[in-house]
């Protein structure tokens, strides 16, 4: 018989041959079809991702808009403000020689409202390296940081020839018509002009420390200049959280054959787990948070193994009574019936861990804002782990594998995981915040290396929690 004939024979024989189908397969298919995909399910939940993305985008946009409203200089109104300085009338005592008791009046006119604001500047020869702005309207001393509450005229540069330091007192009587801080610079090279307004500075406040655009404020860096009183944020928070988790497991053969790994993999499917913990957060500056705590996490797994050719012997005792003249006799006939079939072993397995998460976070935006977004990254150190459940051994037998009983099975410290998260924080009051924090945990360890295989777990979830301030400044 030629090869072609042989091939045709085999094809004809098997192409349409129908083998018996195991009973119950249809039910298993229905179960499998209705069940959510067990691995990488998040890849299919595009809607969920899109929702999170939209929320993150809207929150980010909200921050930007709020920051711009609060901090941006209104260019149009600033440009409308013409500033005139009448040297002869308003600055009668100013001279290149720089007399010691110079007093200058700066008249600022606003075209649109025809309102005028008067500012009196007193220039002294004092050699102190800092300047102070005193505003009668707000009656407070403000530093040279970024000012948020005024509408226009962001900077007035007063140049004094031989006066490196000046004290400026604003005496404004009209609301929304006066700048509440001035930038003072001293330039020795100017001989003819004592006071001038640098028009470009109207667009940017705080030229000493900040770039012209308020990008720093958008990024939440607006207040990073050292304060006059040397203040630094030292808030300490305690955070408590609870998270539904989903873990994926990868099994690696470690000397065992691949069929065993495949059977084990098909018998085990991951289920939703959870984690809960508390941690302390300490502010380092206005935006950086160092966090450390303790957490308990539990990975749940469903085990279902179908064993074929299982024999079950049932003993049947049949009692019969024989009626005889001497008396009835009861006879018990014992028979044993052996059935061959399959057995399905089901179990809920639990992998339990106690961890120490240590992370560093960066929170964007104004520290006092209602909504904040943060990025966190760090490590999770496992300090204890245990397993409770069943698995299959290399002979494909279902065995109980509680870690207390069988050493070497998920009862060692599982090493280090990498942790990354995006937190969304809502301020409730000066003491309390709530947060939602989607996170991903990437395991760097392999477990069960002594059991003929090793496993690796990656977990993702969303931590929901509260954050309470236990010390530090009050948010006013």
């Amino acid at each position, binding site marked *: *018989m030629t*090869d072609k004939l*042989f*091939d045709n*024979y*085999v*094809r004809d*024989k*098997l*192409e*349409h*041959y*129908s*083998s*018996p*189908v*195991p009973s119950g*397969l*249809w039910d*298993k*298919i229905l179960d*499998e*079809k209705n069940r959510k995909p067990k691995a990488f399910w998040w890849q299919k939940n595009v809607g969920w991702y899109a929702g999170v993305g939209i929320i993150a985008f809207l929150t980010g946009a909200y921050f930007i808009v709020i920051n711009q409203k609060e901090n941006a200089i209104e260019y149009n109104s600033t440009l409308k403000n013409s500033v005139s300085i009448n040297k002869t009338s308003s600055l009668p005592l100013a001279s290149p020689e720089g007399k010691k008791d110079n007093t200058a009046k700066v008249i600022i006119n606003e075209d649109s409202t025809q309102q005028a604001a008067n500012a009196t500047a007193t220039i002294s020869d004092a050699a102190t390296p800092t300047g102070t702005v005193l505003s009668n309207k707000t009656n407070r001393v403000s530093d040279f940081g970024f000012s948020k509450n005024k509408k226009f005229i962001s900077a007035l540069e007063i140049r004094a020839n031989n006066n490196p330091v000046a004290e400026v007192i604003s005496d404004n009587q009209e609301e929304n018509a006066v700048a509440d801080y001035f930038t003072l610079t001293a330039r020795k090279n100017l001989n003819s002009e004592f006071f001038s307004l640098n028009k470009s500075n109207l667009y940017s406040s705080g030229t000493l420390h900040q770039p012209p655009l308020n990008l720093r404020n958008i990024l939440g860096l607006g207040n990073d200049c050292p304060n006059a009183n040397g203040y630094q944020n030292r808030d300490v928070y305690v955070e408590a959280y609870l998270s539904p988790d989903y873990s994926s497991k990868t099994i690696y053969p470690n000397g065992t054959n*691949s*069929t065993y*790994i*495949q*059977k084990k993999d*098909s018998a085990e499917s991951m289920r939703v787990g959870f984690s809960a913990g508390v941690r302390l957060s300490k502010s380092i500056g206005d935006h950086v948070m160092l966090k450390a705590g303790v957490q308990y996490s539990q990975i749940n797994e469903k085990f279902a193994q*179908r064993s*074929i050719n299982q024999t079950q012997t049932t003993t049947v005792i049949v009692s019969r009574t024989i009626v005889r003249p001497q008396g009835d006799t009861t006879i018990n006939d014992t028979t044993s019936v052996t059935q061959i079939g399959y057995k399905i072993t089901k179990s809920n397995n639990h992998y339990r861990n106690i961890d120490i998460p240590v992370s560093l976070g960066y929170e964007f935006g104004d520290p006092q804002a209602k909504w904040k977004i943060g990025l966190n990254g760090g490590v999770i150190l496992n300090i204890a782990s245990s397993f409770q459940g069943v698995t299959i051994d290399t002979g494909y037998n279902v065995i109980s594998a509680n870690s207390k009983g069988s050493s070497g099975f998920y009862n060692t410290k599982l090493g280090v995981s990498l942790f990354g998260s995006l937190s969304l924080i809502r301020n409730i009051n000066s003491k309390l915040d709530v947060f939602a924090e989607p996170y991903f945990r990437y395991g760097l360890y392999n477990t069960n290396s002594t059991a003929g295989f090793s496993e690796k777990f990656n977990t993702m979830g969303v931590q929901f929690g509260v954050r309470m301030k236990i010390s530090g400044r009050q948010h006013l």
Partner: protein
Amino acid sequence: MLFEQYAGKFMTVCKRYANDDMEAEDMLQEGFVRIFNNIHQFKFEGSFEGWMRRIVVNVALKSLQKKKLKFSEIKDNSVDTPSIQAYAYNHLGEEELLKLINNLPDGYRIVFNLAVIEGYSHEEIAKMLNVQPSTSRSQLVKARKMLQSQILEIQKIAV
């Protein structure tokens, strides 16, 4: 019903690729789940059964590839396989033939199934299995030879 009509046929397909019945059952289950999940993608171009069969074969291949399939060469010290008379096949049932195919090494068995029964060309097989077409050809020749030898053994025992 789709399952009742085709499950038996596809069980045979899975049995040809799998190492044992349990693995075949898993393949069939996964195959039907995929068929039901993707049935809307069938474009009524060609045979529906052929479309479903391709899915089942792909599932079987994927399952086998998870085990890192090796196309090993088996030392063959025998002389040319003597030609088998046609009557030798008369007593060979489908189940026996399936078992003989299952006894082939993984690489032989898969190439034999794809080439002889599914009708794929060596180039197509090479693409599917990520091997050279020449590997596919040699595996087929050796698979055929081994299968014929096994049939001959059965024939001898029967005589």
